[in-house]
């Protein structure tokens, strides 16, 4: 079925068109939207695009980085200053999907997808959203929890603070097919160190709940401690608390609960 495609030169006009029409869907890289159209999804009657350069901007020079929602994973991989985001970017799709898929679209990608959003959640990213109400900044956790209600709003950009060292940010995706495949579990950890102790630990999990979530019990086990074997063991045994994984073709809920602690332990102890 033919759909109407509306292309706007600027993001706020696109946001206006999205908020005005409930059946409109924004097209980022299209790797999920085009799938839906190819399947004959009749709920999409209008596709909205924006050719605004602001959406593809990368500002990676300072301590706080900003990525336009339309930035692709391939572009992140080409950016030396974004080395801390290379592992999550590389873990997505094959090369073609990385050339097409955007970080904005990843925020909406349902399980087993949304790996990049797991990394952004551990980094306490801020999402700049434009809706009928104007532009506002939303903490990523709040954004993800209310994701279903974000329809009609346009994500403009994502920003976060650069981790202090390469060791302070870690990412691990468990997949059955290598080097690419859907996530069994995705884990990311941000471990800022202050005076030898962890201050502001963030552990984020993908495929352990309907959306990406923080493992708060594991974070508490790390907070204020040094990253030694006992602390790691405590965090690993708390990893599954508050999670609600489901069964899918890649793994059962039971299996996910069984292995989440194992992989968190490996991530925290720097094991491959």
């Amino acid at each position, binding site marked *: *079925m*033919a*759909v*109407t*495609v509306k*292309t706007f030169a600027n993001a706020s006009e696109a946001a206006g068109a999205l908020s005005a029409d409930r059946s409109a869907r924004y*097209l980022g890289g*299209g*790797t999920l939207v*085009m*799938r839906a*159209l*190819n*399947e004959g999804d009749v709920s999409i009657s209008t*596709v909205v*695009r924006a050719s605004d350069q602001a959406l593809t901007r990368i500002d990676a020079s300072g301590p706080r980085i900003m990525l336009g929602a339309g930035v692709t994973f*391939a572009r992140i991989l080409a950016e030396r200053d974004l080395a801390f985001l290379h592992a999550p970017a590389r873990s997505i*799709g*094959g*090369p*073609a*999907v990385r*050339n*097409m898929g955007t970080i904005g679209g990843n925020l909406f990608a349902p399980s087993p997808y949304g790996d990049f959003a797991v990394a952004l959640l551990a980094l306490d990213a801020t999402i700049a959203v434009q809706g009928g109400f104007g532009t506002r900044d939303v903490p990523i956790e709040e954004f993800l929890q209310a994701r279903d209600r974000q329809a009609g709003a346009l994500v403009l950009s994502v920003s976060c603070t650069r981790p202090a060292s390469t060791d302070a940010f870690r990412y691990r995706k468990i997949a059955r097919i290598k*080097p*690419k495949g859907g996530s069994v579990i995705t884990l990311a950890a941000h471990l800022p160190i202050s005076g030898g102790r962890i201050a502001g630990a963030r552990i984020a999990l993908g495929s352990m709940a309907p959306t990406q979530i923080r493992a708060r019990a594991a974070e508490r086990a790390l907070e204020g401690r040094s990253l030694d074997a006992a602390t790691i063991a405590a965090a690993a045994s708390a990893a599954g608390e508050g999670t609600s994984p489901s069964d899918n073709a890649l793994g059962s809920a039971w299996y996910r609960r069984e292995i989440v602690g194992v992989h968190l332990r490996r991530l925290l102890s720097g094991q491959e």
Partner: protein
Amino acid sequence: MSKIPLQFRHNGRDVAIFVDGGTNLLVALRELIGDMTPKFGCGQGGCGTCSVLIDGELHLSCLTLAETVAGRSIETLDGMKQGPNLHPLQRAFADNFAAQCGYCTPGMLMAAKALLDRNPSPSRADVIEAISGNICRCTGYEPIINAILAAAGGRASA
């Protein structure tokens, strides 16, 4: 619904077509331009046999909204041969038995070309990564990897 006029470069030649809203590039290439080299496998991004290069970058044509390629340059397998001669990658695929049923071959060749255009002497790991979005149900991948390495001048089966 009215058709949308669309112009782009197809294997070095300017083309102009009219598409319906929502048409993907694979359908546009096959049904409107008559280039049958990109294949339809899944329409879901999963198999890679519809792979084409857009401005030199590997893309899945089934997941590309046709309108988004206005003014851009598309390369498909049809543009790979050099006059009467096969491209070195095509030659290497033939020499290394890298095609059995051949259904994945157009996508594999485009993925391989995208790799070699950027990285003329890839490692085996680079090759595996480069074709990781392309599924082959016949060869077991080894002959394809060897063919790409051979085309790159690497050792075929070390």
